[in-house]
């Protein structure tokens, strides 16, 4: 066994952990406005890391990822509203249902490639919406309003833990044996198979992890919103924002989802104050510019043009 040293973890992981550590230390002293902003930023980052597992790492574009976020939200709402559980238990319930759903859906849809997978994933999100509308226990078209307290500190630490685990798993995957298998799938799936990579199993595991964390982040999001409404919860906008964050930040990287979340969330909050709806125009333009001129996102571009950063960010 090699000894585990902090230095061996690399500056990117240490940097992210330091950032999260500082946030955790000062959360209790933050003014409420700032704390709310930070909580939402962390939720967006958690969503970005979740879609990064499947779309960033394998290149399978999950266009309907909002499904797992919504299922996480409905799991929370059912756990808290009907079963009278503690919200954190509700978040866990939503995450686990999302995981199970991702396993079931992924076993079928991951057989498709490219645009066919993207369409199939969008179809599953649409189907989820219409199914929820018919389930009275989930509030049908009315949604569920929760009678939960205003607990910003609890929201903060819950999403903080979720995000920290995601970052840890992302690091573990990208820096180990699995990372090579996954990169080979993204580069050439058929060639990867002929070298012994069990592509179907690897993709399914990643999709399941992705569903688990999208569900967990969704749970916190709707806990904070104290309710869930199907029209909003299944909105294509969330899927697009998740994709936008990792495209902007850098697909499949360790730091990219965090950068992408910062860029998308902060600009959306800023432009929201300028003109409602305008923030989506800005995010859309940002994605187009990045995709056209900086296809490797913020992280890839920095690594390419600033050689000094090459060993520092990943």
């Amino acid at each position, binding site marked *: 066994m090699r000894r585990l040293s902090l230095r061996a973890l690399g500056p990117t992981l240490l940097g992210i952990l330091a950032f999260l550590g500082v946030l955790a230390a000062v959360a209790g002293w933050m003014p409420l406005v700032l704390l709310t902003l930070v909580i939402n930023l962390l939720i967006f980052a958690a969503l970005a890391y979740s879609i990064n597992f499947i779309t960033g790492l394998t290149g399978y574009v999950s266009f309907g990822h909002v499904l797992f976020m919504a299922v996480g939200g409905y799991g929370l709402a059912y756990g808290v509203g009907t079963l009278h559980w503690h919200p954190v238990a509700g978040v866990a319930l939503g995450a686990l249902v999302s995981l199970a759903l991702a396993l079931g859906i992924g076993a079928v849809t991951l057989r498709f490639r490219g645009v066919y997978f993207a369409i199939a994933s969008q179809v599953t999100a649409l189907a989820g919406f219409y199914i929820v509308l018919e389930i009275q226990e989930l509030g049908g078209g009315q949604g569920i309003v929760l009678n939960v307290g205003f607990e910003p500190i609890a929201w903060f630490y819950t999403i903080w833990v979720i995000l920290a685990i995601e970052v840890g798993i992302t690091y573990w995957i990208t820096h180990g044996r699995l990372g090579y298998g996954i990169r080979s799938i993204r580069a050439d799936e058929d060639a990867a198979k*002929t*070298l012994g990579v069990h592509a179907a199993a690897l993709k399914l595991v990643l999709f399941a992890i992705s569903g688990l964390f999208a569900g967990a982040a969704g749970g916190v999001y709707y806990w904070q919103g104290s309710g869930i409404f199907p029209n909003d919860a299944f909105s294509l906008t969330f899927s697009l924002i998740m994709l936008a964050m990792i495209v902007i930040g850098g697909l499949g990287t360790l730091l990219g989802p965090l950068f992408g979340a910062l860029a998308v969330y902060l600009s959306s909050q800023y432009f929201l104050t300028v003109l409602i709806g305008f923030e989506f125009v800005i995010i859309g333009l940002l994605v187009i510019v990045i995709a056209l001129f900086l296809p490797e996102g913020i992280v890839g571009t920095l690594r390419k043009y600033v050689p000094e950063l090459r060993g520092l960010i990943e």
Partner: protein
Amino acid sequence: MKRALAVSNVHKSFGGVRAVRGVSLALEEGHVLGLIGPNGSGKTTLLNLIAGLAKPSKGEITLDGRRIDGLAPHRIVAAGIAKTHQIPRPFLSMTGRENVAVAALYGSNETRDLPEAMETAGRVLGLVGLAGKEDVASSSLTVQQRKRLEFARVLATGARILLLDEIFAGLSQDELRDAVALFARLQGELGFGALVVEHVMRAVLTVSQHVVVMEEGSKIAEGPPQEVVQNPAVIEAYLGPEAGRAPP
């Protein structure tokens, strides 16, 4: 002699096209079997059937007596058979070493330790004459180098039977001579068995102990290389019916 790989009466149809029609062949442990035939004779399809990329419509394929036809490709690799691609398919986003490391990590050796896989990859790249290309992006390799990278990858899986699809094609005369010498040397040193599909007659006749000739999906001849090239059916398949007939 031990028959490691046996293909018995294998058929494969794609819709109405009967690509492989009842072919049988056997590869002995550590031997090189050449598989030749004109374009479209079903050679590559047969390799794909063995590699698990397609399922035979009929017939069976065994490794050491155990059925392997219809297994998924990664299980065929785990069983010790690995195939190169006719047109090299390096993972373009990776370096030479990383390409080979994937094979070491997921092949039949299943090296779980990353540094060890990297070391194996470096060693195998050296064996195939790609020393110095370890940390070069595989997208910048020449065709000849990509062919060697393909070869390095199958070696690094730890396979004892290699399915080599036209590894000698598209090379210049000098490159071909080097490649044949390299192959013969490594085969002698490492002792792997190989099924070599090839257009370049001279290469395949040099490296093989035994040759199977296919035409239109069927086996039309087999035997030692020098015997096979004298066979009228083979000459006819390659050069047309006139050439196969004895001069009047």
